[in-house]
């Protein structure tokens, strides 16, 4: 096929994502805050779609957060990443998929730097051998986990029990999509749709029945800012950026937010709670917030998994208004139960933000 004009430009931002046989590495933040999301990702890929996703028990952090908080030198993070690549090589895989956006950007930056400066790659290989007695091949393909759900979005839609449609009005749900900055702002050609028109989440939303909201601060950072969140004294930076996004999206009345970065949903969720408690302002209907989800959680919901198996009880903003709109059934009394419905109390209610 010969691409011309806009088609040609658009084709430059498409990724030929391999279909199967992936070496999977986890995200520090997603494991802490959205443990059900990673479990759902592997459940969908392995058990629903029958793909080969391998996880090595001895893989570790990629060091990306420490690197972007400027606490470790570049050679340190590169050698940690080289060790991850060695584990992939030893396991016999060539396609590498990261759950984390910071990791995804970190891997791309490292491979690009090695490409530009081959002597540095040689030095890192020597350092890895000295430290760990390991050798590695570079991955043939690096993907972010959202690229895979994007690739499988139509298969998921075919198996879906629910669609992103308001069951009372029959209208598509209005969805804000938020892409992590390190997904495509550094290396636009590596993200589906590039930096200008990232399509990785839009594709899922459209395939599953929702409509995408375009709003002025759509591409603004969530405000994580690494050291601007991890140091208590700096958190006003993080809060201010999230606040700016919510003020910008408010007139469009979003039903929900979907994100692909592990940190963004945490900040977009928790800072809504803080804004409510500080200023008495809420962005959802009737005193609730706007529910924020990871893409794995949304995939799990449309496929009919129990919301509490997905871990949605760990969100501060209540998800029930969205579940009601879609028509997903849930058990309110089981929300905060442990395994086998063990009673483990329940969280206190916030002062302002309405929760269930």
């Amino acid at each position, binding site marked *: 096929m010969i691409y011309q004009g806009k088609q040609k430009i658009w084709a430059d931002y498409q990724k030929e994502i391999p279909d199967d046989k992936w070496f999977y590495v986890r995200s520090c933040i997603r494991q802490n805050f959205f443990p059900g999301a990673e479990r759902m990702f592997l459940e969908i890929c392995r058990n629903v779609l029958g793909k080969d996703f391998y996880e090595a028990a001895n893989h570790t952090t990629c060091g990306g*957060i420490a690197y972007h908080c400027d606490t470790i030198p570049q050679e340190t993070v590169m050698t940690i990443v080289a060790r991850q690549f060695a584990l992939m090589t030893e396991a016999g895989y060539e396609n590498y998929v990261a759950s984390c956006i910071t990791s995804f950007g970190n891997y791309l930056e490292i491979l690009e730097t090695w490409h530009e400066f081959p002597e540095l790659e040689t030095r890192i290989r020597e350092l890895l051998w000295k430290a760990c007695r390991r050798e590695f091949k570079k991955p043939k393909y690096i993907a972010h986990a959202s690229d895979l759900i994007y690739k499988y979005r139509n298969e998921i839609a075919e198996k879906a029990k629910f669609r992103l449609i308001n069951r009372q009005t029959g209208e598509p749900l209005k969805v804000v999509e938020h892409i992590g900055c390190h997904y495509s702002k550094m290396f636009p050609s590596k993200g589906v749709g590039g930096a200008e028109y990232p399509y990785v989440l839009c594709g899922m939303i459209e395939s599953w029945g929702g409509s995408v909201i375009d709003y002025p601060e759509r591409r603004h950072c969530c405000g994580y800012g690494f050291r601007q969140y991890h140091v208590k004294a700096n958190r006003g930076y993080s809060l201010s950026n999230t606040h700016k996004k919510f003020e910008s999206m408010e007139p469009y009345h979003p039903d929900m937010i979907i994100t692909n970065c592990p940190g963004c949903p945490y900040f977009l969720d928790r800072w809504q709670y803080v804004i409510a408690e500080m200023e008495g302002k809420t962005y959802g209907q009737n005193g609730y917030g706007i529910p924020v989800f990871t893409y794995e959680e949304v995939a799990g919901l449309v496929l009919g998994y129990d919301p509490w198996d997905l871990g949605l009880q760990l969100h501060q903003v209540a998800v029930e208004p969205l579940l009601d709109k879609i028509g997903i059934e849930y058990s309110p009394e089981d929300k905060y139960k442990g395994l086998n419905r063990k009673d483990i109390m329940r969280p206190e209610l916030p002062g302002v933000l309405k929760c269930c």
Partner: protein
Amino acid sequence: MGKLYDELIKDYRVKEGLKTCINCGTCTAICPAAEFYRYDPRKIVDTVQSKDEAEIEKLLKSDVIWYCGECMSCVTRCPRKNAPGLVIMALRNLSAKLGYFTCSEKGRQLLPLTRILTGNILNYGYCVYPDTFKWEDHVESGPVWKWHTEHLKDNFERLGANFKGEGPGVLRKIPQESLDELKSIFDVTGGTERIEAVEKYSEQKAGELGMDIDEYCRMTFEKISPGHFNSEE
């Protein structure tokens, strides 16, 4: 050319991130930090390319280089394909190496950051870990997180995590041999040396201020003085 500039251009992030800057200010226009802090990435990049040793030293000792959130939004927009965010990272790296970071309030925060993040990596194999992400230091995480931290084991079990368990899975215990490999990587790549430098320079600063190092660390984590924000008079 002076010594500091020479050091900076050895850094691959400067080699990659700074061709000739045309001073257009697009990076500042798109920058989330510039909207919030008294911060102008255009000026920083211009100072570096000026090769003015005294000005570069001033920069390395200032709060200014620590305002960036490393979101890299500037990288997408620079018409010259520069990466101001990478230049900032190189400046921070040099400031840490030379101990200049203790000259500014935002720079001094490198101590708690180093302790938290490298501690998590070397002790657990993660950058963020439940045992060290305390609700008391993160009240913004809300009552749901307070409840979660009080019922960690039950909640992780409920969600199918492998918290502190053997084998693969969410928050699995990283095998000791892997932690040993991480330590070894830190030793041969300058990671350990960096931690020691940050501790050494911070102890010196704490001594100057007549403070115990842990008390100093707490202060740097929490204290904020006037003068950082655009919104201030």
